[in-house]
């Protein structure tokens, strides 16, 4: 594959997170979701790949990493590196309760033609006006809002870090996100700009895809209250994803906004 083509595929997957099924998956993978003891740490992989959770394509950028501690304040990662196929960082959990780890991105994605050549651009709404040449033709601008999360609890689960911010697509736990057990149904709620997101398709895929011959995805649909329910068939790390599209792009030039939400959730055996 041409390097240039690859670059755009990566960008498209990372930034626009299109609804198309061929999009690569972005994920965070924590070494544990329930920890205890005097000085607990976890180490986390961040990558973009087709197969879960095998880093084989592109690292996720740690520039967009936001960690919320149990007290609601932001916490800092340690030892962050970005390699060929994955980024890695560590987190010391010096508070009791649940941490939210998120890769958050918002911005505009533009495609246009200049002198007969296809061009692409990404950036913020402020930059757009000056970034696109006046001679550009067939300009198409799409806004994107993406959130890729995982959760780690030190001791007893808590909720303060899980409060929604009211922007984009977000997940609110009904069943706690680090308290999931195979065979037990789990209920969560999806919010779009803080309001229940109804009628969205939710997909969950267990990791270790390389060692089976099918995706074996679970699906659910959000109800009027934005809630959906999944019953985990077995223990493992699950990639849970939902996408939406609306016209609240925040820019006059963009007619559409594409949103996606992803969580990596650990399900333990009973």
């Amino acid at each position, binding site marked *: 594959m041409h390097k240039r083509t690859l670059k755009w595929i990566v960008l498209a997957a990372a930034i626009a997170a299109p609804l198309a099924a061929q999009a690569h998956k972005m994920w965070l993978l924590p070494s*544990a979701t*329930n*920890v*205890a*003891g*005097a*000085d*607990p740490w976890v180490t986390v992989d961040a990558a973009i790949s087709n197969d879960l959770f095998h880093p084989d394509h592109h690292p996720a950028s740690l520039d967009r990493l936001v960690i919320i501690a149990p007290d609601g304040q932001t916490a800092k990662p340690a030892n962050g590196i970005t390699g060929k196929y994955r980024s890695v960082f560590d987190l010391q959990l010096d508070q009791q309760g649940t941490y939210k780890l998120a890769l958050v991105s918002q911005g505009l994605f533009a495609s246009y033609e200049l002198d007969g050549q296809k061009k692409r651009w990404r950036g913020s709404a402020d930059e757009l006006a000056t970034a696109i040449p006046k001679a550009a033709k067939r300009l198409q601008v799409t806004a994107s809002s993406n959130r890729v999360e995982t959760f780690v609890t030190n*001791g*007893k*689960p808590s909720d303060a870090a899980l409060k929604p911010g009211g922007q984009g697509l977000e997940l609110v736990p009904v069943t706690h996100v680090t*308290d999931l*057990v195979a065979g037990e149904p789990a209920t969560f709620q999806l919010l779009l700009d803080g309001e229940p997101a109804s009628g969205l398709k939710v997909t969950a895929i267990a990791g270790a895809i390389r060692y089976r011959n099918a995706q074996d995805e679970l699906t659910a649909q959000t109800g009027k209250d934005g809630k959906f329910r999944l019953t985990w068939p077995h223990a493992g790390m699950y990639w849970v994803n939902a996408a939406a599209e609306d016209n609240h792009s925040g820019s006059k030039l963009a007619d559409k906004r594409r949103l996606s939400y992803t969580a990596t959730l650990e399900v*333990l*055996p*009973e």
Partner: protein
Amino acid sequence: MRRLPFFCCALLLAAPLAAAELNLAVQIPEQNVAEYHRPYTAIWIERADHSVAAQLAAWYAQKDSKEGAGSKWLPDLRQWWRRGGRALSLPVDGVSGATRPAGQYQLKFVEGQAPLGTLAAGDYVLVVEAAREVGGREAVRVPFSWPGTATQHLTAQGSRELGAISLDISP
């Protein structure tokens, strides 16, 4: 007045002459393995809804090792951790203890005394869970009625990480 006999019965049940007792025997089996570590073990009593009625024992490494604090591995006792272990502020007097080698252990819990405390009359499950480093994990459940009207002798059998469990209850 029709209720009077029931009332008398309830009084008799609620105030037995001697405090009711749980006598528990737990077997930690020998393991024929090259690398052996004593299992982390937890014993507790659950209500029908899985809420914890009493924490009876938690045996784990009390000292730090080069692998970290002994309490670091407590979530490996998965059911116990989820059902209440994680809410405890450890160590708990009369509950926390060192890990035990393979063998047979006799434990006695008396109503009204820590760590059993007071149990309302009803149906419960006694749970013994063991998790061993580089080994397996197992939970054995023994349902019982409390305090009951007659002596109860209940048994259960673990398959790998736990051996025979017996529970004798005197009302």
